């Protein structure tokens, strides 16, 4: 007979093997606002600075940043003149293919890199990325300044990149005196699920507000593969997305842009701010041979001062596919330029949807078919949408950083815009692609975060040794005066890696959910959700419970 402890140990070993699988030899380090660079860089003794973390980190390593403010008071270099540029953070050590260096927010926490206190009297790059094979994830980046009285320069930058094969994910870059996210050089960079908003450059020599784009991609020739996906730009004084002077094709997809060209948070025009949602190319009006064909697809632009989608005198026909423009001026403007310098209509437009505002300009002569404005069989009204609301687009992102799921501008069942597109080789539902950014008419429930209105109690967990599952309950008590009727969805954010919610109803943004429908939660009432976990590594289970109420 085996010794009884051997049998127990065998199970423990199996759990440990599961836990360690895939870890290889990559190191994990930690940085915290209260840390010290003389410390060990562990969770219990974190470092203080990203500079020190970079000095130690090797390809394949991960550096986690704890939540809180990392306040920068000056650049790592000094202004040699008033037209010089200083960098608050420089990431110049590269990872390797398949072994990126990861600079990630600690799960469930928000590190904030704040540059607003910098007084360097020249241009500022908040985060200056010159290395390659880097992955930045989960940071808030704010406040890259210009200095009053120094009108010798144009913009500063929130995040500036000249490396290749980098991933910028789930960043919130805002309130810079210049663009929030700027790709100056490099290939195969992915900007994923990044928000860039409220950027305004008041001290630019070219005019206040003229250079604060949400996203700028201005790479040279032979710099392919730069992609922006799942991004949002709003309330920037210049454009949402600007690819002017880009010598290589850029793809922007499943991204949104609204309220550009205005002072942030207002509808007061910034005179120098261009105000386009998506400015897809151009070279300042000049013709350039061998210009690339950019790709803009599945995007939404609304309420911009100028065009929703703008070719900007681009000399080549870019691809505009399944975009939705609402209440822009105009929604689509395909002004290109020919070799003689004359303005022409250039663009390959398929399955786009324009509604309200000025629908289109400079499309006569462009390659445009199966768009809402050139299909006699369709008309666009508010009844075509599950919701015609242009509010709420800045709702919190889902736990994995993806865009919030809204009913806004999604097609309703019975809309004559369904199946009116033409296949472009991309997946679609039904007989043909739909018009606009959102395929299909599946009903989307608008959820409001009811977490502040409830008290949540997590019970202890009990083990079922037969199934090895751990079960307990989550009780939510309505502490508000609001009665919730309809659908209630409990979401477990930031659930510990390796732990699964066995009895989940579904998932949202990568987080498991438990749904009650119909549900009724009156003031003072308590609802109890059973939870059952699989936890083979026997980790201490952690998660953040959040309750969402769906509209009935």
């Amino acid at each position, binding site marked *: 007979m085996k010794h009884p402890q051997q049998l127990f140990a065998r199970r423990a070993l199996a759990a440990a093997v599961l836990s360690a699988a895939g870890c290889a030899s990559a190191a994990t380090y930690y940085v915290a606002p209260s840390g010290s660079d003389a410390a060990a860089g562990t969770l219990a003794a974190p470092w203080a600075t990203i500079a020190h973390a970079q000095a130690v980190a090797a390809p394949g390593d991960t550096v986690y940043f704890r939540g809180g403010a990392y306040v920068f008071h000056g650049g790592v270099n000094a202004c040699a003149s008033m037209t010089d540029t200083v960098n608050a953070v420089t990431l110049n050590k590269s990872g390797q293919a398949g072994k990126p260096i990861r600079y990630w927010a600690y799960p469930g926490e928000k590190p904030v890199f704040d540059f607003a206190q910098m007084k360097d009297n020249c241009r500022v790059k908040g985060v200056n990325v010159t290395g390659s094979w880097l992955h930045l994830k989960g940071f808030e980046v704010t406040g890259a300044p210009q200095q009053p009285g120094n009108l010798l320069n144009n913009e500063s930058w929130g995040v500036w990149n000249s490396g290749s094969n980098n991933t910028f994910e789930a960043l919130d870059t805002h309130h810079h005196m210049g663009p929030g996210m700027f790709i100056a050089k490099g290939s195969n960079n992915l900007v994923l699920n990044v928000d860039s908003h409220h950027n305004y450059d008041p001290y630019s020599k070219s005019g206040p507000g003229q250079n604060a784009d949400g996203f700028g991609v201005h790479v040279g020739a032979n710099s392919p593969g730069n992609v922006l996906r799942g991004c949002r730009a709003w309330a920037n004084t210049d454009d949402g997305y600007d690819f002017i002077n880009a010598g290589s094709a850029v793809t922007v997809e499943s991204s949104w842009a609204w309220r550009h060209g205005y002072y942030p948070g207002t509808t007061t025009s910034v005179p120098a701010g261009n105000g386009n949602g998506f400015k897809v190319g151009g070279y300042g009006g000049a013709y350039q041979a061998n210009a690339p064909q950019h790709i803009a697809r599945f995007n939404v632009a609304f309420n911009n001062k100028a065009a929703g989608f703008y070719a900007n005198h681009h000399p080549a026909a870019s691809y505009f596919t399944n975009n939705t423009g609402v209440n822009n001026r105009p929604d689509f403007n395909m002004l290109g330029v020919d070799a003689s310098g004359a303005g022409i209509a250039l663009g390959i437009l398929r399955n786009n949807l324009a509604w309200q505002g000025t629908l289109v300009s400079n499309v006569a002569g462009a390659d445009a078919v199966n768009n809402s404005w050139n299909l006699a069989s369709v008309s666009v009204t508010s009844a075509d949408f599950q919701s015609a609301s242009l509010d709420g687009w800045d709702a919190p992102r889902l736990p994995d950083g993806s865009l919030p799921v809204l009913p806004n501008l999604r097609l309703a069942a019975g809309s004559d815009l369904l199946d009116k597109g033409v296949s472009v080789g991309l997946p679609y539902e039904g007989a043909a692609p739909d018009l606009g950014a959102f395929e299909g008419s599946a009903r989307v429930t608008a959820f409001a975060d009811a977490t502040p209105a409830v008290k949540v*109690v997590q019970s202890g967990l009990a083990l079922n040794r037969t199934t090895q599952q751990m079960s307990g309950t989550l009780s939510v008590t309505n502490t508000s005066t609001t009665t919730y009727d309809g659908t209630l969805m409990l979401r477990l954010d930031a659930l510990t890696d390796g732990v699964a919610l066995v009895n989940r109803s579904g998932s949202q943004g990568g987080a498991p959910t438990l749904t009650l429908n119909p549900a009724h939660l009156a003031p003072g009432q308590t609802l109890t959700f059973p939870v059952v976990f699989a936890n083979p590594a026997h980790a201490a289970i952690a998660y953040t419970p959040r309750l969402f109420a769906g509209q009935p």
Partner: protein
Amino acid sequence: MRTFLIALALACACGGASASPTYRVVVDTGAAAGQWGWLDFLILGQAAASPVHATLGGFAGIDGDGTAPLLAGDVAVTATGAILGNGAGWNEYALWTRFGGRIGFDVLLDIDPRAGAGSTLEVALLDAAGNYAGAAGDVLAFALLPGEAPVLTQTDAVTLPEAPAPALVGLGLALLGLARRRRAPRRILAGAA
């Protein structure tokens, strides 16, 4: 199997603070008579849980063969038993014994009243491979929530005849201080999971 829910007020007879209820527990292991196995105590930790300590002592009826107790996670061995906490994901203390007779032990619970997730102290009879012996699940469970009385779930095999002697309570309280000092760094590590 019949299950009872018994509130702390019915079980605690020591007159101590409600945050430190005490119990004398007797488990009839006759349903697993003839088997060797573990009298197992388990607390599954959650990262958000309020700290909990269970002081286990006063063991009677343990018919062992010299096999050492099983220890895992947040557990400290004492002269008369162990102090089991919830500072790791899996916290366990188990004694090897031959089943068939009645096994008695004392439980003193210390529950931090600060807000946080609850914990459950489970007591089970397990065979050598870790499967339930003589029952389909735990024989006894203490569901603990900060600021609330423990809720007990037990099978017919369990009786709660009397409260422990005051001497044990005093010993347990003294040991709690030791356990907390030992536990401090572990709680930091637990937060990393």
